[in-house]
């Protein structure tokens, strides 16, 4: 058996990560970065992926016999991990270049790849993108609109967060969700599956995230990305960075630190867009590959909301409960 990490001096490290940065065909962001890291340092990277919440749960349950060295997941789960005392402190080299909202003030975690919530439409049947949240209440979307379940899916949680922000408060947001439920097909645990449904016309509108949907648009030609605006009138989106942290009691903490440094290095940050189709975490890194340009085009004019994830982590349960009550699900 491969009891990973039993040998603390081994030239290896284990990464637990939310899915999305690795590809089946070996051409994903992680695929490249891991290989480069190993080549540079001789340290082998072992990798486990799963849902963003699942990874934290796994860390928590394994607390007594920790196997992971680095954990990468999305907010609010990275905060959740911190809250459970699962993270150690480390500020990787280059983290100073990461926007303040994208890293933990206490140095428990740092964003390594940025990503943003978006909405999708079927460009065939919805010729012009809906502009505001209210546009989504149009009866033509009845039974043709779906967003992934807040709390269950990271992108679904982001929808909730965005609404909380856009509507300026819990009550207004919930009142809106209550009305939107008329059109909503139902809960969906997975955001990824909404894209094909939208492309097919099964749905007219759904949610997603930019990094993922930018990639899927290549095989799904009828997808269009848009960002509905709140009452304030300006399209907004929520930042959902892949945040990495050093695991407390990591068996290969030194290797982990090297790896975190490496993730924020110029080299790697340059590849975030070109290979990963995402946004560099270090704001100073400016890539000019075609992906980066296309992504910048998509994000043009969209206000990026950086919520207080700490607060959201604390209150998420109550938000989700409120959402459930409002939508009756």
């Amino acid at each position, binding site marked *: 058996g491969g009891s990973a990490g039993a040998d603390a001096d081994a030239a290896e490290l284990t990464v637990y990560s939310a899915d999305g940065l690795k*590809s089946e065909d070996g051409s994903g962001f992680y695929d490249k970065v891991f290989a480069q890291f190993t080549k540079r340092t001789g340290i082998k990277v072992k990798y486990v992926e799963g849902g963003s919440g699942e990874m934290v749960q796994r860390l928590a*349950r394994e607390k007594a016999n920790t196997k992971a060295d680095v954990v990468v997941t999305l907010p609010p789960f990275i905060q959740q991990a911190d809250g459970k005392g699962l993270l150690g402190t480390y500020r990787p080299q280059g983290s100073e270049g990461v926007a303040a909202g994208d890293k933990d003030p206490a140095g428990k975690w740092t964003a390594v790849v940025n990503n943003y919530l978006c909405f999708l439409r079927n460009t065939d049947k919805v010729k012009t993108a809906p502009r505001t949240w209210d546009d989504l209440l149009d009866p033509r979307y009845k039974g043709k609109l779906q967003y992934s379940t807040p709390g269950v899916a990271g992108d679904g949680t982001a929808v909730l967060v965005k609404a909380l922000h856009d509507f300026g408060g819990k009550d207004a947001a919930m009142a809106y969700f209550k009305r939107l439920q008329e059109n909503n097909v139902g809960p969906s645990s997975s955001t990824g599956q909404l894209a094909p449904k939208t492309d097919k016309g099964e749905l007219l509108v759904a949610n997603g995230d930019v990094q993922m949907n930018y990639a899927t648009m290549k095989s799904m030609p009828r997808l269009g990305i848009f960002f509905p605006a709140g009452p304030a009138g300006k399209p907004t989106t929520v930042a959902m960075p892949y945040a990495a942290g050093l695991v407390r009691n990591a068996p290969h903490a030194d290797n982990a630190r090297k790896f975190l440094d490496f993730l924020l290095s110029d080299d790697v940050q340059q590849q975030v867009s070109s290979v990963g189709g995402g946004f560099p975490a270090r704001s100073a890194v400016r890539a000019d590959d075609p992906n980066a340009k296309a992504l910048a085009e998509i994000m043009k004019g969209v206000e990026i909301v950086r919520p207080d994830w700490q607060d959201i982590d604390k209150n998420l349960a109550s938000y989700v409960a409120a959402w459930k009550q409002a939508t009756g699900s």
Partner: protein
Amino acid sequence: MPAPYSLVHGRGARWALRALFLVLFLPLFALPLLVIAAASFATGWSGALPNGATTAHYADLARGDSADALLVSLLTAAAASGLALLTGTWAALAAQALPRRVRRAVNALFVLPVAVPSVVVGLAFLVAFSEPPLLLNGTREIVVIAHTVLVTAFAHQSVTAALARLDPAYEQSAASLGASPARVLWQVKLPLLLPSLTAAAGLCFALSMGELSATMMLYPPDWLPLPVRIHAATDRGALFTGAALAVVLMATTLAVLLAVSRIRSKASYRQPS
């Protein structure tokens, strides 16, 4: 191994039944599978039918380490179904010597693992085996054990049901010929149970091949079963790659099941008329 005696005589009735079979089979079983197969070859699927055909998804798979994942799944399923069959059969046979009430309790006990949501099995395993006495988290064994626990119920149930149908006269005759209980077991009971055993083995194998919820929580970095990959792919919208992986998974499972069923048809029997 068709019945020598045909229950249904009229040609009309026969064909009606076969038609019924197809009417149920096609929409419920064949179409979903066909859709997955078609998706694995689709360039896109924006209407009722796929947009175009390509083998690119399979080519992609060949480049990644899907083959490893398939091997991992096969090994896990083989080990888990083997262990489950052993444990389940053992328990079913041993339970026969018990008083009725105890036997029932044991039978219920072996069904219990299916009564626990698999997410909980995953989490509970992590909790239990991340601390002494058994430190198993992050090992391959924990995956195999979890699969074994999850499928043992099926092996146990099949064998128990088959045992209830076994005529005790065979066992008794064998004993009267001087066969020790072990010999009776190996040469009489188990061969007579073979159709049920292979059925159980196939069932366990297939279930293990498809297990996802618990595996997701448990798998170590160097032991990544195929369903986890399928899930990861589909969950991030790589639908067609996921479909291709699923086709690979199912084709392999089917091949193994067919092979197992060959064992069965050779040894199966019908009692004399």
